[in-house]
């Protein structure tokens, strides 16, 4: 059995845990730590929500209209003989 990780180790491996890249034994040990440590539970939850917030911060709604002058400049370059 893999020993229960420390808070530091939980933090170090959090990205792999979040990405589902930890093997089952390590995942079980990781979750045993979480079941006993309120601080790490809060940290893991905020880390997961942070990634969600990042995606919302730059949502697809930010897709700008193409600036007419930029489109015209690009098309003008295209028409210019090289």
């Amino acid at each position, binding site marked *: 059995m893999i020993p229960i990780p*420390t*808070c*530091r*180790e939980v*933090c170090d491996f*959090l*990205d792999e845990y979040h990405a589902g890249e930890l093997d089952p034994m390590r995942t079980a040990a990781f979750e045993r730590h979480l079941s006993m440590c*309120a*601080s*790490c*539970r*809060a*940290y893991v*939850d*905020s*880390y997961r*929500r*942070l*990634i*969600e*917030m*990042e*995606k*919302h*911060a*730059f*949502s*697809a709604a*930010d*897709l*700008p*209209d*193409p*600036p007419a002058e*930029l*489109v015209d*400049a*690009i*098309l003008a*370059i*295209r*028409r210019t003989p*090289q």
Partner: protein
Amino acid sequence: MTYPQPYLFLWLLPGTAGPRARRRAPPSYRRTRIPVQPAPPAADPQAELLERLRAGDEAAYDRLVREQTPILLRVARRLLHSEEEARDAVQDAFVSAFRALPNFRGDSRLGTWIYRIAVNAALARLRARAGATEVSLDDWLPRFADDGHATEPAEPWPADAGPERREVRDRVRQAIDQLPETHRTVLVLRDIEELSTDEAAQALGITPGAVKVRLHRARQALRTLLDPWMRGEQA
């Protein structure tokens, strides 16, 4: 590559039902012998557009530029933080794409191909900037005692933070802007543009391991930057 969101919806177009949909068809359909009409050859919009571009069709170029410019400009703005430089990078990308078009083999979608060129154009501009002194992330990383316990225990964030609220979105963007360039770039490419680790590594010219380390450190720093506001403002 999971790619700019518009392309995801191609899977939702009519006629793209996958094997799961076919498995769900009632057995009676399979038993009924209906003469099968040969399907008309499927039109491939990309192949058609590509053919027109290679033939020098101005309308096709116009369509390509109008469709792709918003997507390319968005990623260039996210990476460069300068409207002028973002526009220049998009222009650079199209110039490169126009030159390379005769050699484009169609292994990836046209939009994906141009998107990659634009990311590289923006990153080239980032690298060309005079070497600004990077702030260290160390002060924003969690600290631990010798026995491995956190010296400052984390407290939960309120459940109703509302990530879609404008105020929260603004705060997150401001915090991302505070990250040093090397880490902000990785965070933008991986978490926001949703490039894979390997794709981000290739674009940045670093190892996949370095991408993973920078991404994790960037997220941890971002969490530290947002933590007081999340707990105070939202309480």
